[in-house]
């Protein structure tokens, strides 16, 4: 849950998605600016934190990068409990991973925090020639489910910072005292169904 400090706050962000879709790679790209051709598979989950400045606040993201294998599913609630945001990642070259992403969306809708900011990331968009998941299909799905959608590449860095910053911008500023009068927060997801598509 987002907690507020002096115009700065912490927010827990969880990455979910099938194994090998690039969750760890996205975090590594965002936090350290690196990419590894062979990224070790994650067991349980890995933790990172990164502070970013958005227009009106400083957000410290506490990022949980979870393990993707199906059977690790039963551990996931421990990581998404209390999360203010989630990035659900699939691999545009594997349809199966997109189906898995939809399951995560359902699960979060059912069990997560109703105010959770949820992003759908179609990763590995540098692999255009191997694409199996059409952009439009994912975008339509995202709109129907009030997610914001971007195609990303941890390899080329396309849209990686963008997706994390967009999440930070959309996070509800928890405390009314900090909130500029008249700002409406509840319609954030529905109002802005911006989609950003990978350009490779």
């Amino acid at each position: 849950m987002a907690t507020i400090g002096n115009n700065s706050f912490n927010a827990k962000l969880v990455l979910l998605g099938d194994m090998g879709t690039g969750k760890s790679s996205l975090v590594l790209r965002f936090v350290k600016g690196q990419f590894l051709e062979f990224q070790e598979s994650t067991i349980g989950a890995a933790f990172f934190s990164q502070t970013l400045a958005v227009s009106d606040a400083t957000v410290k993201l506490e990022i949980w990068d979870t393990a993707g294998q199906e059977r690790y599913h039963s551990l996931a609630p421990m990581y998404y409990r209390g999360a203010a945001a989630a990035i659900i990642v699939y691999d545009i070259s594997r349809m199966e991973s997109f189906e898995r992403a939809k399951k995560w969306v359902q699960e979060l809708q059912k069990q997560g925090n109703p105010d959770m900011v949820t992003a759908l990331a179609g990763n590995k968009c540098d692999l255009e020639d191997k694409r199996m998941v059409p952009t439009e299909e994912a975008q339509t799905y995202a709109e129907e489910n009030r997610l914001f959608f971007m195609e990303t590449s941890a390899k080329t860095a396309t849209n990686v910072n963008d997706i994390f910053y967009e999440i930070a911008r959309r996070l509800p500023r928890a405390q009314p005292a900090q909130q500029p009068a008249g700002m409406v927060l509840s319609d954030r997801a529905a109002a802005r169904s911006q989609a950003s598509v990978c350009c490779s």
Partner: protein
Amino acid sequence: MFGSQTQRETSNGFALRRRAYWITSAISNPRPNTITSSIPKKKSTLSVKFEDMYGFTVDGNIDDVNVLNEVRDKVREQAKVWLELEASKGTNWYLQSNGDRINVVSLKLSKLANAITLKRLVRKGIPPMVRPNVWLSVSGAEKKRSTVPDSYYDDLTRATEGKVTPATRQIDHDLPRTFPSHPWLDSPEGQASLRRVLVGYSFRDSDVGYCQGLNYVAALLLLVMKTEEDAFWMLAVLLENVLVNDCYTDNLSGCHVEQRVFKDLLAKKWPRIAAHLEAMEFDVSLVATEWFLCLFAKSLPSETTLRVWDVLFNEGAKVLFHVALAIFKMKEEDLLRARQIGEVIGILQTTTHHQYDPDELLTVAFEKIGSMTTNTITKERKKQEPAVMAELDQRQRRLDTSKMNG
């Protein structure tokens, strides 16, 4: 089978990697190697890259190098002790302490004496030279193997060659992602070995199939055991006899049970730490899950991990609790000062990644925690099982209804 890494016997019979991890003799610390000497811990800023005993690249500092050099000295001392024992008790004396067919009283007594000696010795570390044999013996892997035809492993690999299953697909996906910085594991040869072990096991037990985490465990087993077949049997005995059931199957229920037991133990043994972390809403499973699933292979340096495994194979799965509790205890003061989850994780990660001195960790693990018998742990597990099953069940039902509702 490990290419250049197979040249490991030195003149005194002590197994040592050719590519050793000391940098120059000027840097190494010529301290007399008393086994109990404690190793000074000071911060050093000069960072160096070197290879440890099992060929892993380490990013450390000069102090780490010194610690590793001392550890190497201690290992050499232990090797002497083992050699002397072999001289007086006969080669493979430890094999007897596990057999159970001997009925003569005097033999029983010597068996008991051997078992006690063995337990003490194993906690001090099994020298790499005899590690494969001792592991096979004390874990029961040898016995397990003796119940099937000699050709079992070869037959299994031959029968499964070329077969494609969900498990093999996942294994293939993880092969290049398993300790990719290790030279042998990064080679086609190493990955082929690892593949055969994991694929073979996935067919032996289709309930386990392949579970992420086993790739790290099997990789380290291969580096120690030297032959694929021995590594395979160690993996089998580990999953089938040493660890609690269902750690790696289906929904990891065994792992959930272990985590609950661990939480209870932490609260009992280190109530201050447990209360502090609870107040921060920090669930220790957030970090401990990986420890238990990879048996510390991803967190501790290689020789330290293997020292934990020495005891694990000889004394059983309760060892994991000892070690996990020890890690928290060693950093008690720092943990009590931590105010944020990120700090807690940082403290635990730094401690584990830099725990080059196995004795420091194992001393806390076995001397500071108080007794925890396998029996008490078994009772604890029994107590937790229904709650875990209920929780997993309930979650599954909620997910199923969510599917039906769209």
